[in-house]
């Protein structure tokens, strides 16, 4: 038997793989939690789209500064060494290849690295794009954090081809789900890690795309 990771579990698993010195943007949803699991003595610099460089932990209620928020308009603190830039410079960071990593949530990822995370249908009346398209094409590497299957019906979010409108084509390098860690390669999705007790066969059963076992199959 195996136990899927909860959302914090996925965030913690991602944090393990972020080395000291990286400059990182975390999207809304599961990714936002990643910074909580990076140990304080590991210097990772977190960026927010609204022009914050060096996000620190959430403030105590008495330390809230109304002028200091992240891209989800949550109150934050700034680490020593942090900086503020205006919105065009902030997106120059994202679009100009200055982020070592961006972690985004998604509805679906396909085996050639397409990501769909902004609309469930082309006919959706009201569009919610935000900054995802800029981050997806601009970061040096894009990781996705999401549940492996949909809540209703258990449809696979790991696809041969995305069924939802794309955010960007061919940009996802790695996917962290509640069941596994998958690398996007020219040979397809390579399984680099799985939750304890899950077999490759059981993971494949829950996945629409064809999976490739890693040479170091099992826990990475």
């Amino acid at each position, binding site marked *: 038997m195996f136990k899927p990771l909860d959302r914090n579990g996925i965030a913690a698993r991602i944090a393990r793989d972020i080395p000291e010195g990286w400059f990182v943007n975390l999207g809304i949803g599961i990714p936002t939690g990643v910074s909580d699991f990076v140990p304080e003595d590991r210097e990772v610099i977190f960026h927010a789209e609204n022009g914050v460089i060096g996000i620190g932990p959430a403030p105590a209620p008495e330390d809230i500064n109304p002028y200091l928020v992240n891209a989800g308009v949550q109150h934050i603190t700034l680490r020593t060494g942090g900086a*503020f830039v205006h*919105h*065009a410079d902030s997106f120059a960071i994202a679009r100009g290849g200055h982020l070592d990593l961006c972690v985004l949530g998604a509805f679906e990822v396909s085996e050639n690295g397409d990501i769909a995370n902004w609309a469930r249908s082309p006919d959706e009346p009201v569009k*919610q*794009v935000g900054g995802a398209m*800029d981050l997806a094409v*601009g970061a040096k590497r894009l990781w996705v954090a999401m549940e492996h299957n949909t809540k209703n019906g258990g449809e696979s979010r790991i696809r041969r081809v995305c069924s939802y409108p794309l955010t960007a084509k061919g940009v996802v390098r790695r996917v962290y789900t509640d069941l596994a860690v998958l690398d996007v390669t020219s040979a397809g999705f390579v399984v680099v890690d799985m939750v304890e007790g899950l077999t490759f066969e059981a993971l494949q059963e829950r996945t629409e795309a064809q999976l490739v076992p890693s040479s170091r199959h099992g826990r990475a």
Partner: protein
Amino acid sequence: MIDKFVSSRSEALEGIADGSVILLAGFGAGTPEYLVAGLIEQGAKDLTLVVNAGGRDDGPIADLLATGRVKKLICSFVRPASVAGRLYQAGKLDLEIVPQGTLAERIRAAGAGVQAFYTPTAADTLLAEGRETRIINGRNCLLEYPIHGDVALIDAWEADRWGNLTHRESARNYNPIMAMAAKMAIVQTAHVVPLGAIAPANVHTAGVFVQRVLHVPG
């Protein structure tokens, strides 16, 4: 003597014409709310509003949209359950959704005299349908044009009489680039300081981009 200070909100907003393109700065912080309330009172109509997002059910953006005097909204996202979302679905508001980085860069381009630019952002998406794309250095790119404002509504922490500004923490966001991109940048500032009090190296928005400043102690 150069003095960009005005003494009242009506003086600050005087002359905003029907049909104007209004650039409204702010992202969670840094929205010049007192000026937005004044624009509602001033009564200009058929406006195009350029702002990061369409807002919620309350707050300055929702209040302005609820007047029905905004005919077009240009922003990076709209919540379906908001004043903007409902007006759009009822056919009472034109909507142009722009990826947030492209929005910021189109505004910056307007201020910088850039006539157009290509970016990979959104080039492979629904937003590129029917528009000009081109492969540059092996990447599919989308042609984008600048967004010029007739008026920018700007928030500042400090201002001097030349219009040099500082902005608090993340309240900076769109303020410097929207000031650059508009013919008339109108500022509400929390503090007035003497010329020279802002260290030259610490000016966030240079006075050359600012036309009118109103002291709004907050």
